[in-house]
């Protein structure tokens, strides 16, 4: 069978979701953000939420998320996305409201807004990309940076006496009564991508059903910040990040 016989519209089983537009994404080659964007766009399309989904973009690498997924977006100040999402969901309860935040945005400057939104049980979804580093500003230490990990601001490796311990946000959010679903996923293999997608789907359903706050942490790579190739970053993530940030559901009420 010739390639021309296979490559026909009726034989297509996978393509870029329509809501992920043709804009060239500014992310570095191999960045996990792109995979998560794709999953979100697919889900919004498959779940028929195009006119209901409202995204809140962060400050950090995903600051331009609104340029890539064709739904309504609000760009937040650094760390404030859960506060904005709170108001949007309370004022428009029939919408599916989600934030998309990195670990610099959420785990450092935005911890207060995150914990309190979850504790109030706001019916929002928090997508939390944890790659253990500040990507956009050039690879500085984040609260989630592993001990010993070299960054621009921990050039000899993160030390407890200087920098304290890596912060596990999902455990914190799972501990408050208002959260209904907290899970930690990754997108480094085809199987992981499928699992992450069903986790985010469940979170979106929770928002529509008014069950409380859902947080989906995606342990991710930052190959530019980690100074590794995308494939090596995935390996390093599995060998190092997963020990501190283990995969799986932390809470599912």
């Amino acid at each position, binding site marked *: 069978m010739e390639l021309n016989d*296979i490559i026909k519209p009726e034989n297509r089983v996978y393509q*870029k979701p329509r809501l992920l537009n043709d804009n060239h994404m500014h992310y570095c080659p191999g960045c996990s953000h792109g995979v998560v964007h794709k999953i979100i766009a697919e889900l919004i399309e498959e779940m028929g939420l195009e006119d209901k989904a409202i995204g809140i973009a962060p400050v950090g690498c995903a600051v331009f998320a609104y340029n890539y997924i064709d739904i309504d977006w609000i760009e937040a100040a650094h760390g404030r996305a859960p506060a904005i999402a709170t108001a949007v969901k309370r004022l428009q309860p029939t919408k599916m409201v989600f934030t998309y935040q990195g670990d610099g945005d959420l785990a450092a400057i935005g911890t207060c807004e995150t914990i309190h939104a979850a504790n109030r049980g706001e019916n929002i979804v928090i997508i939390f990309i944890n790659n253990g580093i500040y990507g956009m500003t050039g690879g500085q230490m984040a609260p989630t940076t592993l001990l010993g990990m070299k960054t621009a601001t921990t050039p000899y490796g993160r030390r407890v006496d200087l920098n304290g311990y890596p912060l596990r946000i999902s455990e914190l959010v799972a501990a408050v009564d208002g959260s209904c679903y907290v899970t930690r996923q990754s997108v*480094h293999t*085809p199987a992981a991508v499928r699992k992450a997608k069903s986790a985010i789907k469940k979170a979106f359903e929770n928002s529509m059903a008014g069950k409380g706050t859902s947080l989906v942490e995606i342990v991710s790579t930052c190959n530019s910040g980690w100074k590794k190739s995308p494939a090596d970053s995935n390996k390093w993530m599995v060998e190092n990040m997963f020990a501190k940030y283990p995969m799986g559901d932390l809470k599912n009420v």
Partner: protein
Amino acid sequence: MAKIKGAVVVNVERCKGCDLCVVACPTHVLALQPKEVNNRGYHFAYMQNPESCIACQSCALVCPDACIEVYRVQE
């Protein structure tokens, strides 16, 4: 048993040559262009061994830039 035949189409200009699809492919179909680059200077992915493709979508799932379309026929 019916044999599955697959093929992928890479959006060459969208591809950033990150290599993740190459690593994810279980049947070693894909490779990065060794010399040729796209308009942004990336060595983009292509089907080096198209006859091995089983349309499993692994490459497309892990592709961060959604530049892979997958096609599938049952022979």
